[in-house]
């Protein structure tokens, strides 16, 4: 299964998720649901100055959505908000590239394992679920718009 969607890295993150669990303190939280498959995730972001000090999460869903949250945690914890949004943008572009975009390991780290997912439109939503919740939670943390947002990710 070398062509498989399920790269070793993804399976690893799925079976041994990094940084899972919701933690305090946090500046913004977002809960996203994929209505087509019922996957859901809650993401919390803690910010100190311009640095993201923690990304914590909890949720349930398929291996792709769960592993993606684990990678998200790993890539973005400790970066600046600006860098985090740049990574988020690159990851989203990779996912929406229908398999035509070359993944950049320097930027995406383990995230490049998701390159194959881009060929499966039905699964792209899974991979992006936590990233969209992250964007939302960060925006809330930055604007102080209150802690929680509920959303359905299409």
């Amino acid at each position, binding site marked *: *299964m070398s*062509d*498989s*969607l*399920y790269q070793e890295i993804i399976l690893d993150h799925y079976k041994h998720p990094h940084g899972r669990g919701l933690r305090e303190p946090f500046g913004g939280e977002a809960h996203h649901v994929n*209505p*087509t*498959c*019922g*996957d859901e995730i809650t993401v919390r972001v803690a910010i100190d100055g311009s640095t993201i000090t923690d990304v914590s999460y909890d949720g*349930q*869903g*398929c*291996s*792709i959505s769960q592993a993606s949250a684990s990678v998200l945690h790993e890539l973005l914890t400790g970066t600046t908000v600006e860098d985090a949004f740049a990574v988020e943008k690159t990851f989203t572009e990779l996912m929406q590239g229908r398999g035509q975009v070359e993944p950049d390991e320097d930027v995406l780290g383990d995230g490049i394992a998701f390159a194959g997912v881009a060929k*499966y439109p039905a*699964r792209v939503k*899974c991979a992006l679920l936590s990233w969209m919740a992250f964007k939302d939670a960060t925006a809330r943390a930055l604007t102080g718009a209150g802690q929680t947002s509920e959303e359905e990710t299409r």
Partner: protein
Amino acid sequence: MSAPHSPLDVDRVRKDFPILERRLAGDHPLVYLDSANTSQKPTAVLDTLAEHYTRHNANVARAVHQLGEESTAAYEGARDKLAALIKAPSRDEIIFTKNASEALNLVAHTLASGLADDPHYRLGPGDEIVVTQMEHHSNIVPWQLAAKRTGAAFRWFGLTDDGRLDLSTIGELINERTKIVSLVHQSNSLGTVNDVATVVARAREVGALVLLDGSQSVPHQPIDVTALGVDLLAFTGHKMVGPTGIGVLWGRREVLDALPPFLGGGEMIETVDMTGSTFAPIPHKFEAGTPPIAQAIGLGAAVDYLTGVGLDRIHEHELGLTAYALDKLNAVDGVRIIGPNSMESRGGTVSFVVDGVHPHDVGQLLDEQGVAVRVGHHCARPVCVRYGIPATTRASFYLYTTFDEIDALADGLHQVKRFFG
């Protein structure tokens, strides 16, 4: 478990379906277990489509030229075939729509429009609409919208733990205020075949209409609308070896006559004047604009194909497959059937969950082995909510399905479990 005898020569049947020779990624042969989603098409149907377009293509009912006559004759001939298939008392009772969803919406919209002369066919405050918790979204949303528009109440039958309609409250649920009961014949997510007779009997007592969603039954067993006793029946071509883009609404003449028009346009009229229009009799009253001509003709060919093989034999073949599949799946550790786990009143659609593995992952890994199943809520989300699961994996069978393919599914599930173990 050895495969039981089938009344069909499945190897021969499979030769009629060119797509079944398709090789998938990794050179896996296609194991297509997603026929409840859409069925594959035999050469006879595809040839009919090609022949129509290359020899007879013209618009119907509007031309005095030869191609027009030929096309009209073929289109109306398809109506005859559909009428015969479901034993409709009259060919005029067959309305061609684009799919089952349009057929169901047609009934909901016209009842909600308030345009019917007879108040019996006008929904309003105080009226009640009854569906079930196992309906396809196409038989839920139109009624929710109709209720919102008219002020009628939207009510539903719940489900028992083993995947059947909970009819214990039928006496209260279907009452004098009920204008219409709309229910599915065979559930597309659970495989349950519903006890239509009991519902019809109660609806008759209170004078409510009964609309049956036959999307998952008409393709798989002989149907007789008069014996069923319902007022209306909706089904869809693409699930019965026909083309996409075509569906059917059958209704008793009296009911279709009483419903006001739905879509307005060319050919559904009797006469149009800027100051007002009158409408054609059924079936044309409900067929606005250029109909799906080639698709109706293709569906006629599909009916010929299915009746040629024999719907009773197809049904029997599927029962054999289903019993075999239930045995096989129940033998896989951690697999739990969602829906009836016995052969009593069920069809060839089997939903299940695998302990600890998300249905998306089940489906994807099966696909990597060439086994095509559907995962998700199958457009029947309330069923998943009822059973407290996010989604299921669903295998569904048809006349071309083999016992070997069910073995492939079971083998695939073992591999899924090893992979995520």
